[in-house]
């Protein structure tokens, strides 16, 4: 008997709980050759801003033990080019597309939210208040409950689409941020974004990244991500999307048990472009093998 893998996040119906994480799956096109895009629950596109953004100088990425640091600096084509060049492809694929976006001021966030609200091909919005790479950027919002709440409630007024808020792990108490964003009108919370880290080139006596610090992702951060998802699931009512070091179906199911209603696969797509598809298939197989009829019965089912 085929298990029911469907979940609903903030009103978006997903064929399965496996999404791709922002910034790790481009605009989905890039992976069309390697993945059947209609076997994935949803994609989240690369962080988008009003104007095109140059991003940081290179080097922008470096491998670390069990993970990687990135300081892309939110390079993106800007909303106009996004609508002109990227949306047509998204329309052609029968899988919900969620747009991750950011701004440097509340006004920019709001303008983005209202413009994205006009694009029918977009199923939902993910607010990035937590990208640790841009100095004057999101980090401020992502680590202060007050600011976070302001941005979220402002965006809430600007869009009727599903509003997901993506939380930063670089905080003392993630549950405070989670509650603030929920109360400000978030339909769902996604976590975690990257942990701020640094790598040094001993021979050159310099930081490896041109930006000095970067965001740590990959298997290395999974224990921190699982802990935060579990903590947040205990104190909010809105659904949670678990992110952080998910490499296989087992990892994904652990996040579901911890309280996530869906997951996002990030760095894993770099190592294995078909990771998201394989994880979704692997989860379904596990449920079938164990005789679990519905994935929803596993959400938060940790004893």
């Amino acid at each position, binding site marked *: 008997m085929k298990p029911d893998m469907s979940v609903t996040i903030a009103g978006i119906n997903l064929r399965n709980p496996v999404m791709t994480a922002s910034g*790790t799956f481009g605009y989905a096109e890039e992976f069309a050759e390697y993945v059947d895009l209609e076997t994935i629950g949803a994609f989240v596109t690369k962080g988008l801003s009003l104007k095109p953004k140059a991003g940081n100088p*290179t080097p922008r990425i470096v491998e670390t033990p069990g993970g990687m640091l990135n300081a892309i600096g939110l390079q993106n084509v800007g909303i106009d080019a996004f609508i002109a060049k990227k949306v047509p492809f998204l329309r052609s694929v029968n899988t919900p597309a969620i747009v991750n976006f950011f701004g440097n001021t509340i006004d920019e966030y709001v303008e983005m939210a209202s413009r994205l609200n006009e694009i029918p091909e977009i199923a939902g919005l993910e607010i990035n208040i937590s990208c640790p790479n841009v100095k004057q950027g999101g980090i401020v919002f992502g680590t202060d409950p007050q600011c976070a709440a302001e941005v979220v409630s402002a965006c809430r007024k600007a869009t009727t689409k599903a509003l997901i808020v993506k939380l930063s792990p670089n905080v003392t108490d993630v549950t405070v941020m989670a509650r603030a964003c929920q109360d400000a009108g978030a339909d769902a919370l996604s976590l975690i974004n990257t942990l701020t880290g640094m790598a040094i080139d001993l021979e050159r006596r310099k930081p490896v990244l041109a930006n000095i610090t970067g965001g740590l992702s990959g298997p290395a951060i999974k224990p921190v991500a699982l802990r935060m998802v579990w903590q947040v699931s205990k104190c909010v009512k809105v659904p949670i999307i678990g992110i952080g070091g998910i490499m296989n179906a087992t990892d994904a199911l652990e996040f579901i048990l911890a309280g996530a209603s869906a997951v996002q696969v990030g760095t894993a797509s*770099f190592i294995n472009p078909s990771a998201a598809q394989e994880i979704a298939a692997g989860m379904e197989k596990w449920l079938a093998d164990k005789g679990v009829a519905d994935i929803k019965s596993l959400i938060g089912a940790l004893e």
Partner: protein
Amino acid sequence: MQFKSMILSNSEVSPGYWKMRMTAPTEFSLAQPGQFVMVRVNSAIDPLLRRPFGIFDVGMHTPDYSGAAAQPYFEILYRVVGKGTSMLAGLHETDQLDVLGPLGKGFDLGTAAERKIIVGGGVGLAPLYMLARELVKQSSVSLYAGGRTRDDILCITEFERLGVECYVATEDGSLGKCGLVTEALVSSLSNGNGETSIYACGPHGMLKAVAGIAAEHDIYCQVSLEGYMACGVGACLGCVTPGRNHTVDTPDFRCVCAEGPVFDGKELGWGC
């Protein structure tokens, strides 16, 4: 494409430089000179990321034992510089690897009339062998190979076997002319002969010099770049390099893995 590949051979061709031959699907034989592969060194998380390598050559492997079907293969020529390449050097025949490729944009082969000049520094020769093999079919090809010492001059005999005219320069003079390969290149150009096209791969400094020389002589020059890569498919934006018109306000970053690794030298912002 993504495929599981079996190692057919893996041996050291010069101190610190290894050549690996691996099985490939039939379609892989369509790989263009200058394209690359991303190799997953093992199935563990150390190293985590794939490693990019130029495609040295592709061909058909006929097993010794009779009756066995011929097997398409490809080769990489790699230098052991760190964790991943050390692990690769430790692998044996019949070991399996997960491979992504052929990736990126290869070299434009140009027209038969042109004289072709290939410039390679050290392991930069890797993607140039297959290129030479194609070019010699229609044009006269000369190779300028440079390196720090003789050990960095790779596979010259293979190039000569193709009928390529080879000029070698080493910084310590242990092989060929003593000095930078670009110096040899300049002198050859000074006696400017007709239509010429340049192909280069090697250290960034060398590529910048070659691109500069080509610009002076108004010669079409293609360079193959490197960059730190995570995805290899244009998604992570980790590998970008500034284009000619790049400024922070008018970003003009080119994606090395997807728009390259081969670029028209004039299209790039070489910085200082």
